[in-house]
């Protein structure tokens, strides 16, 4: 048992507590602490990526044997998500410190670290109820971050966001209760074995539970018709927080991938093709709604939020296909869309801070926006194009519907962003030279790093895909994962 597995959960939590206790009014100390944690998370994510390549690994909390205690499970997918969180949080932290967003409230860094703790925990846990607990942890931190800086609109959007997510949590508990009543366990590996051997009489109850759990993940992943919370929340949240939230929708996608391959696999008699049947139409509708939203909005943050919804549609379309090739493509697109959404939210925030001033029309910001829009719309040369191509290649069997939906949505996204760009940067506005140029070099550096990461994802698409293909194959054949959790002492 290797204690490295629990550190990404413990370290941010401990540091957040220390910050609240001892550095409440010392911003510089908070910044140093948060930066140290993010650096440590990056380092640990690198180590875990290497470890995960050797095969799945379990960490038994309190050394209780599975399934009686809670286990953390490391496999390629969770290591990948940890690395994504570490990289993204690094960019967000640079932006927040560079633009001074963290001065607008006392507890930004503590909440930020609690959020990282929840995210890392949700990606590592191998227990369904523990997943619920970590969901709540990352949500409660996100409530605080969402209303950071205050304002009437932001608070009202925050209330809606919290109410929606509380409803989701209740649904999650109903689903977990049903699953426990049917199978008598909540350990995911154990669930996989019990559901495979489920008596036919219990199949109906289990399917109800599966649909409830999928609904919860669909709320998190903003799938139509459960996407209502996203535009208001993301457009009203502070820019860097919206950028961090780009990974929150991916928690839903991660959970669907994990559950649809391990707990509710299509080859079990009780579930069958349930996940594909439900997700495919919802994903197509999400793709369409995202595209229409991108065309129909007049403010950049809302437009980016709708583009994020559209990208979730594409992602879930690939996840719903349920083949290893499609899952690998989905994972690649997941990495891309998280970084691209984050970059665009940061750019929107840079622009909002400069609105009205002479610096608003600076060519650099326009170039950044252009690069971000190219990535988001999935045009060459950035990784969106590669990701979209991979997804389309994996969906060859349903080419007519899926391909036309994806291509039309891309066209709409492209037109929407082109129109927004020309309205923002080419319209002859009276610039007020008296307004000061904001000191946001750190912010611009963060956006540049984000775009550089997208470029790196494009350049190294080959090795990344090779790694992801193995990850997807392991997901769809989870014998090693189940064996690693050593159920009832067996190995």
């Amino acid at each position: 048992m290797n204690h490295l597995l629990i550190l990404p959960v413990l370290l941010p939590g401990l540091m957040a507590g220390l910050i609240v206790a001892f550095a409440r009014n010392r911003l510089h100390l908070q910044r140093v602490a948060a930066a140290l944690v993010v650096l440590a998370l990056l380092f640990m994510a690198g180590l875990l990526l290497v470890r995960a390549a050797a095969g799945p690994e379990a960490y038994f909390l309190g050394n209780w044997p599975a399934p009686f205690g809670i286990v953390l499970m490391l496999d390629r997918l969770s290591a990948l998500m940890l690395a994504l969180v570490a990289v993204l949080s690094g960019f967000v932290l640079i932006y927040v410190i560079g633009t001074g967003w963290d001065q607008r409230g006392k507890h930004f860094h503590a909440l930020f670290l609690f959020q990282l703790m929840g995210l890392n925990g949700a990606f590592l846990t191998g227990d369904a109820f523990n997943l619920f607990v970590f969901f709540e942890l990352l949500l409660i931190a996100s409530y605080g971050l969402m209303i950071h800086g205050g304002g009437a609109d932001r608070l009202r959007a925050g209330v809606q966001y919290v109410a929606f997510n509380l409803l989701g949590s209740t649904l999650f508990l109903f689903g977990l209760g049903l699953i426990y009543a049917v199978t008598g366990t909540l350990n995911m590996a154990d669930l996989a074995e019990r559901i495979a051997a489920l008596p036919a009489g219990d199949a109906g109850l289990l399917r109800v539970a599966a649909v409830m759990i999928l609904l919860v993940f669909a709320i998190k992943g903003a799938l139509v018709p459960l996407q209502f919370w996203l535009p208001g929340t993301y457009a009203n949240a502070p820019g860097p927080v919206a950028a961090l939230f780009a990974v929150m929708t991916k928690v839903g996608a991660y959970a669907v991938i994990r559950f649809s391959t391990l707990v509710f696999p299509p080859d079990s008699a009780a579930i069958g093709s349930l996940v594909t049947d439900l997700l495919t139409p919802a994903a197509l509708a999400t793709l369409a709604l995202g595209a229409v939203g991108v065309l129909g909005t007049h403010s950049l943050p809302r437009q980016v939020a709708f583009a994020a919804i559209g990208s979730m549609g594409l992602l879930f379309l690939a996840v719903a296909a349920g083949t290893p090739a499609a899952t690998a493509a989905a994972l690649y697109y997941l990495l891309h869309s998280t970084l691209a959404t984050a970059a665009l939210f940061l750019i929107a925030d840079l622009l909002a801070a400069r609105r009205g001033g002479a610096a608003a029309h600076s060519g650099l910001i326009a170039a950044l926006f252009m690069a971000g829009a190219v990535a988001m719309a999935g045009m060459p040369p950035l990784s969106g194009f590669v990701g979209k191509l991979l997804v389309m290649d994996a969906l060859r069997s349903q080419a007519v519907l899926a391909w036309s939906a994806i291509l039309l949505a891309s066209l709409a996204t492209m037109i929407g962003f082109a129109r927004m760009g020309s309205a923002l940067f080419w319209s002859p506005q009276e610039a007020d030279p008296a307004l000061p140029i904001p000191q946001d070099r750190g912010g611009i550096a963060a956006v540049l790093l984000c775009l550089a990461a997208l470029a790196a994802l494009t350049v190294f698409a080959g090795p990344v895909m090779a790694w992801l293909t193995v990850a997807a194959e392991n997901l769809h054949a989870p014998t090693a994962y189940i064996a690693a959790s050593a159920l009832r002492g067996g190995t």
Partner: protein
Amino acid sequence: MEALIAAAIGLMTAGGIYLMLRRRTFPVIIGLSLLSYAVNLFLFVAGRLAPGLPPIISKTAAGYTDPLPQALVLTAIVISFGMTAVLVLMALGAYLTGGDARIDLDDGGAE
């Protein structure tokens, strides 16, 4: 006993959903609380009803009741309590700064 508890869960869920659909924050919060009571009871009976039995294997008792749902309910109660407190605070903040208790957003509110 089963019918009574099932009816209680059903009633609370129905009431909770009805209140969730209202336009003001206060009924929505009450509705969410009702829903969380319903789910707590539901989780509790997920381990089957076994009245009067200890939650541990004992030689003197005739059987035992499943202790795990009780632990789950405890966790769920703590979490929903904390979440409701956060929601009440935020709703109060929104009411005091915004001047009304509507829960819906204007579409132009994102400017």
